[in-house]
């Protein structure tokens, strides 16, 4: 438990490495929106852990050679203040190197404890600070030239190229993440290696020793860092240093992955030695430095027009400030940890004892001395548990999806039903309206028939009375009386001939049907009298002067005069047709 508390500072360092250095792998891709952050984070996390566990040992041994932080308290302080320095630099939005922070912190420890600093190892490490970026630059330049030539020759369509680059970026990113885990896990957990527990976990297919478990924890801490904090840094790196094209981004990631891989691969070193060449030192290299080298390499091929010198100088300043700050912080922190909290920060073991055993023999040696734990059964249990959880999750997800689809279908059906209902209502309303209209018409017709009936009986009564009167007058001897009564009869007949009621009926109906026209006419010619309005209606119906005269109960001459006056009043020109004018009103 105490061990876990002490390595928490290493985990913090892992977190900060994840939040910063993942940007070197996927920053350009995420910054240029070629890959989503989520996808990048998953790929980076998985491969970082794999690299750390299976290829992390080489570089961490070199770091241990610089100064073996032999007490957990010392290792805790070194890792904590290296991490703190990285955090501060990140807050200042400067691309920061965890390697330099760790080296600075270890040097702070060696100065504080008075241990011997292995200057040959220090020189080896510092030399990689130069050779790393230079190699990155060379690789990037060569790869970029090759890629450009290939693209020119193949003439791939730009949209297809985008898809190719996307796939290439994911693959290079995975390789880069693996190399980062392999090379930089030394920065995170390197100081704890001397304190690693002597256990061996057997998973059947593979085994993990104490150091690898330590690296696994470190890798997971890096993964947490990637998920929680690296997005912002990715955006800064992706858009800040150089406006990288997707092709260049791919080259940068590939060059960086190659450099980190070479500086952490034990097999490659052995291969070089086998063909008689000096081996590459297995040193934790700053991925930030390599990326900047690679970017410079591309910039040089392009003619160095787009490199933002200000950003580069800011980065360079970070390189100097980082180890110094980490060293000073660690030196003073160790003083407090030892003197105030009373925790031992060193065991002061003579240098000859701390020499590390050979790399090849280590797992077997560990296997001999370590406490072996069979993890096959628990591993299988965990695996089956994971499968069950996954299946349950998938089942619920499927269920949720099904429910969602059903819900959508129901909503759809509901909407359809509502629409149908509204349509039906509308239809019912229309039918009801039509019924009302028809019953109104029926009522009107009924009234009309009543009127006709009344009219017939009225006429009959009148004619009967006229007939009676004439019969009476035929036998009348008094001539004077007969003349008087005949005159009265003639006047009655004349009065009856005016058809006043019928005409009123006629006008009533006609005004009803021409209501809109009357409104328009009144709006345009407000001075028109009621008689003139009636005349206008009759003219609109295209009736002749004679017909108009009958309907208005005037002479034909008077009808023509009335028509002339109306034309003048509505301002009609001589040639204009009054009927057309009134129809188009």
């Amino acid at each position, binding site marked *: 438990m105490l061990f876990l508390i002490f390595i928490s500072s290493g985990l913090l360092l892992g977190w900060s490495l994840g939040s910063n250095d993942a940007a070197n792998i996927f920053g350009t891709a995420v910054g*240029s*929106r*070629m890959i989503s952050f989520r996808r990048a984070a998953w790929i980076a996390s998985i491969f970082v852990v794999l690299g750390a566990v299976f290829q992390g040992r080489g570089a961490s041994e070199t770091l241990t050679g610089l100064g073996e932080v032999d007490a957990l308290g010392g290792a805790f302080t070194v890792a904590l203040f290296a991490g703190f320095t990285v955090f501060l630099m990140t807050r200042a939005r400067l691309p920061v190197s965890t390697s330099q922070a760790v080296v600075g912190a270890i040097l702070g420890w060696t100065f504080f404890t008075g241990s011997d600093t292995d200057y040959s190892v220090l020189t080896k490490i510092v030399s990689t600070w130069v050779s790393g970026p230079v190699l990155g630059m060379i690789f990037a330049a060569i790869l970029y030239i090759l890629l450009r030539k290939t693209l*020119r020759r193949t*003439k*791939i*369509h*730009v*949209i*297809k190229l*985008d*898809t190719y680059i*996307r*796939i290439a970026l994911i693959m290079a990113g995975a390789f880069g993440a693996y190399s980062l885990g392999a090379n930089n896990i030394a920065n995170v957990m390197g100081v704890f290696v001397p304190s690693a527990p002597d256990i061996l976990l057997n998973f059947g297919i593979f085994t993990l020793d104490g150091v690898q478990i330590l690296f696994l924890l470190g890798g997971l801490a890096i993964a947490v860092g990637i998920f929680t904090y690296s997005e912002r840094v990715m955006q800064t790196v992706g858009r800040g240093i150089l406006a990288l*094209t*997707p092709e260049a981004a791919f080259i940068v990631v590939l060059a960086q992955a190659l450099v980190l891989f070479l500086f952490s691969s034990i097999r490659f070193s052995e291969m070089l030695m086998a063909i008689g060449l000096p081996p590459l030192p297995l040193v934790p290299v700053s991925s930030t430095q390599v990326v900047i080298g690679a970017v410079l390499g591309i910039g040089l091929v*392009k*003619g160095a*027009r787009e490199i933002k010198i200000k950003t580069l100088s800011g980065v360079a300043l970070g390189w100097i400030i980082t180890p110094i700050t980490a060293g000073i912080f660690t030196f003073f922190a160790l003083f407090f940890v030892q003197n105030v909290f009373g925790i031992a920060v060193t065991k002061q073991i003579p240098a000859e004892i701390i020499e590390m055993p050979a790399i090849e023999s280590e797992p077997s040696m560990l296997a001999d001395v370590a406490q072996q734990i069979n993890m096959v059964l628990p591993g299988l249990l965990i695996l089956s548990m994971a499968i069950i959880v996954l299946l349950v999750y998938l089942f619920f997800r499927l269920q949720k999806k099904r429910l969602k689809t059903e819900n959508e279908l129901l909503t759809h059906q509901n909407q359809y039903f509502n629409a149908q209902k509204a349509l039906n209502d509308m239809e019912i309303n229309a039918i009801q309206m039509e019924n009302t209209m028809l019953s109104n018409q029926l009522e009107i017709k009924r009234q009309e028939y009543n009127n006709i009936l009344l009219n017939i009986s009225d006429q009959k009564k009148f004619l009967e009375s006229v007939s009676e009167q004439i019969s009476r007058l035929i036998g009348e001897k008094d001539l004077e009386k007969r003349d008087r009564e005949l005159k009265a009869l003639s006047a009655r007949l004349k009065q009856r001939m005016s058809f006043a009621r019928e005409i009123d009926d006629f006008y009533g109906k006609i005004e009803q049907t021409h209501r809109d026209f009357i409104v328009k006419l009144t709006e345009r010619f407000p001075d028109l009298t009621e008689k003139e309005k009636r005349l206008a209606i009759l003219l609109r119906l295209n009736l002749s002067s004679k017909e108009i005269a009958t309907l208005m109960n005037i002479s034909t001459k008077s009808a023509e005069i009335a028509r002339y006056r109306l034309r003048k009043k509505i301002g009609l020109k001589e040639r204009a047709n009054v009927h057309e004018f009134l129809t188009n009103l």
Partner: protein
Amino acid sequence: MKPFKHANKSIELIDNFLNTIDRGAIIFKEGVKNYLYGNRENFVDNLKTLSALETDADIYRRKVENILYTQSLMPQLRGDIMRLLEELDNTIDLAKKNLFQFDVEVPKIPAELNQDFVKLSELSAAAIESVVPAARAYFRSPELVKEKIHRVYLYEKEADKLADSIKRRVFQELPIEKLSEKFHLRYFTLHIENLSDAAERVADVLSIMAIKRTT
């Protein structure tokens, strides 16, 4: 292959779009010729075809835009590519509008100017026809764009010169009495000339885009 499904689809749409623009230029040229020589039926046919081509171009452009943005293809280049397609679409829009103006306004073009108007429309159409291969080159070999667009500038310049000469003849040499008719002819000259200007704008956009991709 699934990752290339959308890429292949958008490539096909862009190719179709460029073919449509190219055909549009040819139809425009024919339309003007038919109008000038009084082939009314053929002119109406040309007008209908160009109108259909313009609609097709719009549809292709929208489809490409949809794929590029919904599938997040080429986040750095899609803005430029969409601008290029919009500018190209503008040329066929203008061509259609011009032909419609001929149909609606029925300008009285003196027979002496027929040859000049035919040549002007040919020059403008040639500017568009030259910008289309340049646009094609951008997608596959951007380094060839530069050597293709110089033709566009040449045709545009020639169209400008010819348009100036037509306007001068209309206002100074030809016996056209009504000022309104002179104005009308000037506007039609300007309309056709604008087509070559639109092609020039496409060429400008293309040259910047090619520089971005090659450096």
